[in-house]
């Protein structure tokens, strides 16, 4: 796997990352797995079992106050056996202009996540999108159906095992593409 070389994190971000990590660990113990700064962005990996409580804590705790869910994104690393799929939540604390990324990983055999709609209504469409592209199912979602792709497709196009090029196209001569 390609490992990027990020520049060393600045002190402030690193301190913020460590402080948040310590706070979360005090509250949730071993459910908080690791913390690192990637591209000047604090990133905390947590266990799926406690994801809802952790996000609720980050949102409602007066000190953390990550009240805004910027985006959510599915992850697929087929080479990580047992943790093939993942989900990333990006949170924003606007009054203090702080951002944080929460990641969680789970096996391909069990793609069920708790919904975070009770915390953020905006998660409704985001979760539908992750269902649409990765096939991650959200327990408790009121309307879990495809949002962008055709309703009748039987595949999840952002998974790594889905061929990038359209398999129905027969006019492409491989010799023209150097392969």
């Amino acid at each position: 796997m390609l490992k990027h070389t990020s520049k060393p994190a600045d002190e402030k971000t690193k301190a913020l990352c460590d402080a948040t990590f310590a706070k979360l660990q005090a509250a949730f113990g071993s459910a908080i797995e690791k913390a690192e700064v990637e591209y000047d962005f604090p990133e905390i990996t947590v266990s799926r079992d406690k994801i809802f409580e952790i996000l609720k804590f980050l949102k409602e705790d007066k000190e953390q106050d990550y009240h805004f869910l910027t985006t959510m994104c599915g992850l697929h690393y087929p080479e990580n056996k047992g943790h093939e799929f993942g989900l990333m939540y990006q949170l924003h604390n606007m009054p203090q202009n702080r951002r944080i990324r929460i990641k969680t990983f789970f096996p391909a055999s069990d793609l069920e996540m708790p919904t975070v709609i009770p915390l953020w209504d905006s998660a409704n469409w985001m979760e539908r999108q992750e269902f649409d592209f990765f096939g991650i199912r959200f327990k408790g979602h009121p309307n879990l159906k495809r949002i962008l792709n055709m309703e009748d497709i039987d595949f999840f196009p952002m998974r790594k095992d889905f061929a990038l090029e359209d398999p129905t196209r027969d006019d492409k001569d491989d010799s023209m593409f150097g392969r």
Partner: protein
Amino acid sequence: MALTETKRTKLEMAEKPDGLEGPGFFAGKLEDLVGMARKNSIWPLPFATSCCGIEFMATMASHYDLGRFGSERLSFSPRQADLLMVMGTISKKMGPILKQVYIQMAEPRWVLSVGACASSGGIFDTYSVLQGIDRIIPVDVYVPGCPPRPEQILEGVMKIQELVEKESFRRRQSAEYKELLGKYGIE
């Protein structure tokens, strides 16, 4: 300069079809006459979804002016349109809508596919993009380019005009035509 001295250019609106001509009469084929009339009054329906649509806007504007070819009046209702101009990327989700628009058009109808995306999917060889509109509707003329210049779009329209002019009265009733539409599942 006096008005009588002004040099006048003789304007020819449309070329006369072949026929016998004498003082006060003209005898020719009705088919030719209808072909001439249709050719010079095509009402296009612009189905523009992306950058080729921008080129089409230039084609319609004063500098290039599609109106010079008798297509001044765009029809935004498929029921009154003669020519469906598909310009831009058609996603798989848009496919059924495009087909519906085509079905709603009255015969005789023609289709112009403008640009690489409409013709073949273009650079978007991917899960969400239809790999050419000829997978769902029959196409008469393809215009290559990404996007094509207004001159190319005009050239495409002129090719359509040639087809319109030469088309036989019986083509739309022929078994071949029915078979062609049948291949696309259109009655």
